[in-house]
């Protein structure tokens, strides 16, 4: 009985430490956004910068995700969206995202995030209402999917992501709309005529 109690305590302690580590991440992101706002002043430009940073993260993150999760190739955009939502978000942000609102063509969907560690403790003031706080996530998804080159087919996924709902603006979840622009064939750097 005593061993159980002490194990329980240890588990609670570990969880508390883990939550503190996660807070560093939230704090870092928050101070990054503040600095960008003071550097650029134009909120649209800040949104673009966040998205670009996310893109640079995404192109590196995708290899790590593939190595650690050992996922095989996804057959279509639908599977890809599911994998991104269920596995990638839970691996890196420790949250579960769900996929919904597919359009008729099957190339647009919504990722719904109920919890978002980036926005813990954040309240957006009125003058920053045009700020898309989670733009970085859009960039990460765009970067990661652009690097996915299918074996043998060499197909890039050109995806456009935008924030549709935001908990900081009063909505009850964070919704990211993912739109597959087109399946582009990778351009070879040489001509067959040479």
């Amino acid at each position, binding site marked *: 009985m005593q061993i159980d109690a002490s194990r329980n305590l240890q588990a609670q302690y570990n969880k508390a430490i883990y939550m503190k580590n996660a807070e560093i991440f939230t704090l870092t992101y928050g101070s990054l956004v503040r600095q960008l706002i003071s550097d650029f002043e134009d909120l649209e430009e800040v949104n673009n910068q966040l998205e670009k940073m996310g893109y640079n993260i995404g192109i*590196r*993150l995708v*290899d*790590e995700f*593939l*190595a650690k999760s050992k996922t095989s190739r996804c057959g279509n955009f639908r599977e890809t969206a599911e994998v991104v939502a269920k596995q990638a978000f839970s691996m890196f942000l420790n949250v579960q995202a769900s996929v919904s609102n597919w359009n008729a063509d099957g190339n647009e969907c919504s990722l719904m995030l109920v919890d978002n560690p980036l926005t813990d403790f954040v309240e957006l003031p009125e003058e920053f209402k045009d700020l898309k706080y989670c733009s970085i996530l859009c960039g990460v998804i765009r970067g990661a999917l652009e*690097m996915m080159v299918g074996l043998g087919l060499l197909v890039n996924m050109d995806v456009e992501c935008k924030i549709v709902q935001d908990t900081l603006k009063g909505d009850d979840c964070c919704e990211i709309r993912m739109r597959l622009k087109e399946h582009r064939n990778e351009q070879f750097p040489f001509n067959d005529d040479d």
Partner: protein
Amino acid sequence: MESETFDLHCFQTLTGTKLLLVVEPRAPYIPTILQRIYELYTDYVLKNPFYETEQVIKCEQFDENLEALVKRYSSGAL
């Protein structure tokens, strides 16, 4: 690809990165070691913010860990 003096193994990731491994003929556990090397690559090379993609990899930590992995592999305990 196999020849008399060496085997050449290629591991292609879903992002198009190719890992080429030259080993002595009929070496065992190649898929495992390729997977491990891929994981080392993602950890030390990609997480280094100063590494530009498609440049020569000059990360000390990557080299050290890679050497340690190869030593463990050749001593038999993976």
